């Protein structure tokens, strides 16, 4: 990687060396490159500051004493660090039940989604059948549907089925919303496992599915973990459906709990930032684990938005 960037750096200066011999030219380039790199590095650091500052401000505000939060003179570094904001945040009513709701809803949705996604991914990766391409296009196309547009009919449907204000209503929707992307992603992993492994298991007497579960499935573990984490992040970040469907305070998910943070007399920014930090920590941790697979996201439809 460093070799390629070296060349990239030199490329920008190539014009300056015209008219000199190859050796001189190389000499000139090397010096120029050094100088030019500094400009790019400074620009890069400026971009770093802009991108990182909101995250920094989130963390630092959550640790700042409240009198500094409510001050006209915000400082870059707090005079002292305190966990008061976190204390006020977790003492807000329904914090415990919100964690519980989020864990139940996201956990069940992800487990169910992974099961359906794995067997469907196996089918489209290992078999050639009529309608396979159609199914794959459906998987991609549904990810492009605007979620807010689907909200109204889903709400009406859940109302008809008695799913409003119930965990299962939200679980079913989360499960299926994460399904297309998870299927697509797992398919990519299945393709990379040689089918010969399954074939030899079948020669040794395994059934088609037996070969998959006993041979391919264990090899798929890292891919499944990555897909599960993606689904988990998606479900964990969802707020609108939960906001509309869940009505009891003690059924709110963490996100709905956070949304209702600001409505009571003014905004306690210290506590809001502390609560936001708490919600973001698991997401960031999991995101780091699967970040390298994000490239798949480009060609597989919506990942975030």
């Amino acid at each position, binding site marked *: 990687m460093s070799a390629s960037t070296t060349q990239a750096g030199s*490329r920008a200066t190539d014009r300056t060396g015209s008219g000199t011999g190859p050796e001189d030219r190389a000499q000139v380039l090397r010096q120029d490159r050094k100088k030019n790199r500094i400009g790019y590095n400074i620009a890069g650091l400026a971009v770093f500051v802009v*991108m990182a500052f*909101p995250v920094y401000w989130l963390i630092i505000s959550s640790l700042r004493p409240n009198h500094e939060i*409510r001050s006209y003179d915000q400082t870059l570094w707090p005079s002292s660090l305190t966990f008061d904001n976190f204390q006020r945040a977790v003492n807000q009513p329904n914090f415990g039940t919100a964690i519980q709701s989020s864990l139940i809803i996201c956990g069940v949705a992800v487990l169910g989604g992974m099961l359906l996604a794995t067997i469907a991914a196996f089918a489209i990766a290992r078999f050639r059948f009529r309608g396979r391409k159609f199914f794959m296009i459906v998987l991609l196309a549904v990810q*492009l549907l605007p979620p807010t547009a689907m909200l*109204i009919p889903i709400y*009406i449907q859940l109302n008809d089925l008695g799913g409003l204000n119930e965990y299962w209503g939200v679980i079913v929707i989360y499960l299926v919303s994460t399904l297309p992307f998870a299927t697509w992603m797992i398919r990519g992993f299945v393709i990379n496992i040689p089918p010969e492994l399954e074939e030899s298991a079948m020669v040794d007497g395994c059934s088609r599915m037996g070969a998959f579960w006993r041979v391919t499935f264990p090899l798929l573990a890292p891919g499944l973990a990555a897909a599960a984490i993606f689904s988990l992040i998606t479900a964990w970040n969802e707020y609108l459906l939960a906001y509309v469907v869940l009505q009891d305070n003690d059924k709110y998910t963490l996100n709905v709990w956070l949304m209702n943070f600001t409505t009571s007399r003014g905004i306690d920014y210290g506590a809001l930032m502390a609560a936001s930090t708490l919600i973001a920590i698991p997401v960031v941790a999991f995101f780091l684990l699967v970040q390298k697979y994000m490239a798949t996201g480009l*060609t597989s439809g919506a990942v975030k938005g």
Partner: protein
Amino acid sequence: MSAADMKAADPPVTVARVTEGSGAQPPRGVPRRPRRTAGALLPYLLIAPAFVAIAAVFAWPLVKTVIMSFQDVGRRELWTGEAAPWVGFEQFTNILGDGEFWSVVWRTVIFMVVCVVATMAIGLGIAMLMQRMDTWVRLLLTAALIAAWSMPLLVATSIFRWFADSDYGVLNMVLSKYLGVDAQGHNWFLDPVQGFVIIGAVVVWGAVPFVSVTLYAALTQVPRELEEAAALDGAGVAGVFRYVTWPVIKPVFQMVATLSVLWDFNVFGQIFLIRGNKPEPEYTVLGIYSFEKAFESNSFSQGAAISLITVLLLSGVAVYYLRQLLKIGEVE
């Protein structure tokens, strides 16, 4: 991915079962399979649960949206379960004849265009910068990009709301203290243009990491020799980019841009949350418009009709995106 496909279909060398000459036959063609019909049904059985689930949660609501937009579903129909009366095209004529709807559409389109152009320009700029900077700076920048990328929308919006707070926000503080503008106590959301600048900042800040990381990956695919040859032949920086770099990254750029169009047109959460779950009329974009019609005014059919119009407006973009995917052989 298509390369992996081909690898998966390569002739298996060591496995003894291969008897027929063409090794490119996928594993389905195991010879001497006793029950052919059962084997042919298996893939359908495997995709059936996922297919049914997707049909129930994506396809049926879409159908339901169409049905509802020709009815009049209000609060009464919702709670009593009474059959909603059919009203034909009334919802559509009402909506399309409403001046407010058209101003909402324009607002959405303008916001989308500005955000997409800003996101793509900044994203490409960062990607090209990443190619040229030292490794340690790039690692640092990548870490910041990933941190920004992973921030939940809800959290990101809270942060920017806190930035723009009229009393204690850091934005007003910096403006008044260091830039000599009297912004103390300035409310950014009184003027919707200023408000949309803040909202656009949340959107762009959240979208730039994906764009720049993806475009950086595409840029590393550009053959160095070609760039160098072009430069030696006298092409300037712009010329190298125009004739060597751009053709290579163009497909990726187009797809990322298309996704950005879809995402930014459907912007909802950033506006909804930054305005405290109750956006003022000046902040209404299409998604919020349909949401409010349905859940604030309890006119679910109007909301559904607006959603349907949104889906139709975007379907062209979605089809374009899918065609791009098919063209690069992703669906194989």
